[in-house]
């Protein structure tokens, strides 16, 4: 099942995560109960440089489907972004949130 932000949908989602010829890997963000929509939008705007609208779509996809592709790139760039995502910290809006979100790199 293609994700909404997959390359074949780039024409209609110009500010969605974009793939190019150098993209060999992708980062998949996973849902959990300890982070808000606001957190995901902040995270993706800041680290993956998505527009607020694109970040919100990813947040909704994560909530509804359990995961979303948030970045495409060469492996080294994905590693760097993954490190930033997993060290972004807990969601300050939720008192019980103590950890970052989970994400992983997959071959594109």
């Amino acid at each position, binding site marked *: 099942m293609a994700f909404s932000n997959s390359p074949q*949908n780039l024409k209609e989602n110009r500010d969605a995560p974009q793939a190019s010829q150098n993209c060999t890997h992708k980062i998949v963000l996973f849902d959990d109960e300890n982070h808000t929509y*606001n957190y995901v939008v902040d995270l993706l705007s800041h680290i993956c440089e998505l527009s607020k609208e694109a970040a*919100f779509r990813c*947040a*909704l996809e994560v909530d*509804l489907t359990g995961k979303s592709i948030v970045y495409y790139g060469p492996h080294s760039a994905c590693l760097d972004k993954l490190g930033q995502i997993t060290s972004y*910290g807990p969601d300050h809006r939720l008192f019980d949130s103590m950890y970052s979100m989970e994400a992983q790199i997959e071959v594109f």
Partner: protein
Amino acid sequence: MEKAFLKYLNQLNLAPPLGSLAELNSLNSSQLLNIATQLPDEVLGTFLYLLKNEREPNQLFIKLMGMHEEENRSLSETFFKKAQLCYLEQPEELVNPLTTYLPLEALDDLAFLSSRENFFKRQNTVAINEYLLLLTGQETNYTPGQENEAFSFLWNWVLSTKSKPKNLPPTQNS
């Protein structure tokens, strides 16, 4: 809740009468988007929550994207704008995120404060200096790039308030 919500939806007359969640889930993209864009904002979350728990969450999201069809693009964009306003806090709602999410009473818990270090350092230095002044009564002038120093200041201030001896209640013989 499902029955009550379906009854409510049917009263709104936004779609053919629905007898079950399965029927709601079987609506096509434009029908679903039509309902979602016309629902009152307060119930949008409930609407999506009920649909999310049905069998095919991936299919739901693709329907909300308009099945990537041009004819549904406008409805889909309207839905996402509406959802964004409903789900996200608006910038003008927060005066200073630090005073909202790092109140004085929360600083008793050092583990909690430690977990909020990244959040603290992501704020701009205007908010940081304002927060530290409100909290400690001391004026600070940290500039961008000095977030680590600012957090160290906060941490040390919290530790210093914890290490001060508390006033003991008078004994019966005094």
